[in-house]
């Protein structure tokens, strides 16, 4: 692997601290991924990316910046990549998924902020993540209160644009979101110097749709009784798709899907027949948060679907490509994005419908509904989610956790008991 220290230095990173992070990551990757048996060969691509996660892609981004392209960092699947891509910009996800960044976030945020927000702020202020350094502009959104306030703090350190996400899904809210996308487009045009046209927007919509379809293809293979890929590997693929070039992402996912479909045909499974199939739902699992999947899959069950923003919410539903004006384009985008069911909205019964549908589609034996500590929205929604699933006779285990390892054994007991219950 190339030495990246010069690059990190030029990004103004805290090298000493960052070396600490780099020294623990290979061990974690080894424990979680390399210990798995019978992995698909196609995972080699993601193994390579994750092994050099702060090197390969950041280096590419810097090269593109030299050519004059702008990099936008985002924190939510509501921010429409299409607009940025159309204006020749680059999108990179920015959510922090490691405890490593939490203390730097806690230096400015209240302790009872969700770890995702603390880690994201900490990664920026602690100067220990190249993506947070590279992004020319951050794009926030008015989803949860914690993020809104965190953006104010981040905005003092980096150019920040915040999109006003509606809280409800009435027709007028969808209209409002289309208008909000139009405003965002103006900002992106200004920042990139590239004018948005029907043609480039159409092309961008197509690119992102193709990426969505490719990811869906991988997920579709997980619906089979023969499980061709583990939950951990699928999650890694999804997590990295937030950072990768969308066209390469689609190519790699399609290649992986080819292999997985072949595996299904040949009855190649990564687990023993009869292994209980789990759907995981709740707050996002930002890279490198593999804790929950790892515990589930080393406790005798398999994760077959993630009803999460790092999962189906990221790629389900396509944008209508048949547009004849920018106005139509914004509407088409708004229609698609407003189908994403996040607990920031009220009501959010669509999420329950999604979970119930996916339980059938993915042949699920039990649901694990897990939220990050201090995420009041998803925590509160557990009540209605749990009740609806029980009414539908779908076993559900509801958990709360953070990025530390202190509760690993307690989670193992609960998840173990849940799996024993499903196995009875």
């Amino acid at each position: 692997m190339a030495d990246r220290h010069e690059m990190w230095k030029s990004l103004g990173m805290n090298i000493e601290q960052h070396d600490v992070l780099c020294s623990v990551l290979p061990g974690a990757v080894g424990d979680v991924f390399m210990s798995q048996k019978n992995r698909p060969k196609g995972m080699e691509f993601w193994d390579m990316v994750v092994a050099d996660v702060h090197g390969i892609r950041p280096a590419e981004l810097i090269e593109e910046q030299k050519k004059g392209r702008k990099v936008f960092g985002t924190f939510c699947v509501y921010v429409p990549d299409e607009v940025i891509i159309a204006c020749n910009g680059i999108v990179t996800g920015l959510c922090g998924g490691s405890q490593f960044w939490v203390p730097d976030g806690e230096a400015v945020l209240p302790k009872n902020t969700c770890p995702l927000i603390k880690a994201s702020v900490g990664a920026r202020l602690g100067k220990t993540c190249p993506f947070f350094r590279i992004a020319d502009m951050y794009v926030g959104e008015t989803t949860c209160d914690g993020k809104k306030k965190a953006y104010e703090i981040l905005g003092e350190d980096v150019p920040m644009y915040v999109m006003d996400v509606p809280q409800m899904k009435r027709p007028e809210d969808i209209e409002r979101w289309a208008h909000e996308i139009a405003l965002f487009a103006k900002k992106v045009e200004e920042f990139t110097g590239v004018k948005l046209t029907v043609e480039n927007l159409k092309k961008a919509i197509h690119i992102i749709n193709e990426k969505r379809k490719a990811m869906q293809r991988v997920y579709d293979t997980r619906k089979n009784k023969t499980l061709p890929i583990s939950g951990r590997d699928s999650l890694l693929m999804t997590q990295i798709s937030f950072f990768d070039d969308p066209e390469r992402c689609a190519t790699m996912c399609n290649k992986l899907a080819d292999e997985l479909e072949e595996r299904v045909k040949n009855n190649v499974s990564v687990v023993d027949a009869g292994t209980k199939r789990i759907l995981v739902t709740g707050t996002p699992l930002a890279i490198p948060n593999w804790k929950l999947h790892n515990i589930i899959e080393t406790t005798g069950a398999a994760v077959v679907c993630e009803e999460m923003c790092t999962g189906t919410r990221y790629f389900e539903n396509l944008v209508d490509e048949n547009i004849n004006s920018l106005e139509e384009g914004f509407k088409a985008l708004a229609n698609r994005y407003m189908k994403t069911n996040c607990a920031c909205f009220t009501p959010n019964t669509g999420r329950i419908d999604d979970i119930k549908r996916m339980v059938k589609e993915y042949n699920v034996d039990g649901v694990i509904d897990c939220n990050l500590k201090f995420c009041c929205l998803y925590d509160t929604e557990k009540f209605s989610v749990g009740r609806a699933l029980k009414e539908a006779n779908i076993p559900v285990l509801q958990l709360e956790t953070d990025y530390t390892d202190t509760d690993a054994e307690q989670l193992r007991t609960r998840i173990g008991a849940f799996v024993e219950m499903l196995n009875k």
Partner: protein
Amino acid sequence: MSKFYIGIDIGSTSAKTIVLDENKNIIERILLPTGWSSKETSEIILKKLNELNFNVGNSTIVATGYGRVSVSFANKAVTEITCHGKGANYLFGSNTPSVGVNDDKAIDNNLLIIDIGGQDTKIIQVENGSVVDFLMNDKCSAGTGRFLEVMSNALNLKMDELCDMASKGSDTHISSLCTVFAESEVISLIGRGEKRENIAFAIVDSIIKKVCQQAQRLYKPNMKVCLTGGLSEFKYISDSLGKELKTEVYAKKDGRYAGAIGAALMGFI
């Protein structure tokens, strides 16, 4: 040579061992403090079993409890939720073989088990002998045995004395949910000269309310509610739980062995 089914439940404060014969009769109970190392405790248990002439090599041994992975000589490890469910069903369920401990013949197949352990509280719903749902509080010591332990120490009382005293008290409340703050509340109550009976009442009342709040999430009126764990020895505790839940709460003298009994039963599967 006869074969035995041995269940070992290494909890946070005590380690319970049960030996069943081939007819699922309890023939031995061993109770030990867990101490610092569950590994050492498990070795002491092994020594005792050998001394008592239970042929360990020819027995099926199942470990449970948070120290279950430290029992190196066990044939398998099963979570305490599953074991408590099985054990409680043995003690309180309808298919109970007559083993002396079965003093009432309720035919309920729908149990709600409350287990107040040293470090956590478990609420387990058991239908026809199998766990169908459960809740667990292990984030905080309020509502666990640890809370009572800290408070009875503050009052300089043993558990049975605390219960005894509480039954004569009334009308005092502790507002803090956190064990550390509640302890200082108790100390200031003592300082204010509040009657010890009333303070004892407030302490038990606080844990009962906390536990019932959790139990309510799974409780339905058609369930038979049973208390297991170390506190099931104290009638005042099960009575108070019953008052709060407005139903009878059953308890048995082998209640603290529920997890170990369940583990031993897992050996038959």
